[in-house]
């Protein structure tokens, strides 16, 4: 049984995917938990990478998470299962090709 304390490795805010990928240097089949105590914020990318880790080592659990950290992981985890939603906004959408500065000026002044 082995526990990894994330704060000791990455500090209180873990933001970049590149950082959290280093966790693979520490996790192995003996690892049973990642202790998230002291972690104040994780980015969405980091949450996604942590989901990859728990998918790969399926006995691994994340413990001692603050509400907002837990919330981020929960949202990302649900999103991964739901599949990709391509997003479309309702507002007016236009594409303009400008061949000169006058075209560009007109395009930027457009009020639809």
């Amino acid at each position: 049984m082995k526990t990894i304390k994330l704060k000791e490795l990455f500090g209180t805010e873990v933001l970049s995917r590149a950082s959290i990928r280093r966790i693979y240097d520490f996790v192995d089949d003996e690892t049973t938990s990642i202790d998230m105590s002291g972690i104040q914020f994780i980015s969405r990318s980091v949450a996604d990478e942590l989901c990859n880790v728990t998918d790969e080592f399926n006995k691994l659990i994340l413990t001692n998470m603050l509400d907002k950290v837990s919330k981020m992981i929960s949202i990302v985890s649900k999103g991964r299962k739901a599949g990709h939603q391509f997003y479309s906004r309702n507002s007016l959408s236009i594409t303009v090709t400008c061949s000169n500065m006058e075209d560009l000026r007109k395009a930027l002044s457009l009020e639809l």
Partner: protein
Amino acid sequence: MGGNICIPVPNTCKESRLEDVLMALFFLMDETERQECKVVWDYQNIRYMHPFFTSFLAVYKDARHGLVEDVNVSEELQNLFNLVRVQAPVLVDNRVNFRQILDTYRNNAIIPMCKFALGYERIDSFQTLLQTILREQIKDKDHESEFITGFSYLLGELICNIQEHSCASYGYVGTQYLESDNSLYVCIADNGITIHGSYMSFPKGEYIRLIGNDEAEALRFSTKGISTKNLPDNESRGYGISTNLRMVVDGLGGTFLLLSGNAFLKIDNQQEQFVNLPKGINWDGTMILVRMPLKQSGDFSVYAYIE
């Protein structure tokens, strides 16, 4: 000045319409890119500049490696340039004590333009420092704590995008708060392969058929969350841009601008506009400029925009 070409820098102020700021920015790019020699930017009669314009100048000048010289910079404007670090971004690496420099901004309304190498291993602590400074800068303003979480999300995802996809050597980040509209102006940029270039580099070439040479269409794809990340070891999502612009525009009522290669997009709550720019106006990389109003409706939550 010698035989260098002199280009008058257009006047923009904090009250300028965004369209005028953008035209000023594109005019300067167009005139500068036409020249094959060193150019001189003439700032005569300019006392102040819009935050998006100073952010652009800082990144653009740095990328041009001294090929642009400034003249007729008033004392007032030079003070602003020094604060924003328009003429020399703060270098974020192990050789420079950037923390000491950034600490002097805690009681200011500006985080100067910072330039970080893509392989910088302490990028997380740099981002944490920026968030800490911003939190102190806006602590007396009309804001909710969710604003900082939104800023953290924007910063984290867009810097991650630069690291994962841009193939850039450097990234840039800077912010300015404007009292007049109670908004934070954020600039995040890189000198990489552009969003269109990122789609074109997709291993199976699928996007070449869908997008072709249309760089504005590539930007449209990115805003829909269509990913360039469909690699075996990556998540098959492209949420960095699409979710951030929803948070900024729909959640905060702000504006999201993106310049990448020869294309540009502007999205606010009125419309979304994708523009193939005239030939000659080209940014070798991606530059994102965001206006984030601090005053939010009570129910704003960044988590509503994360998927």
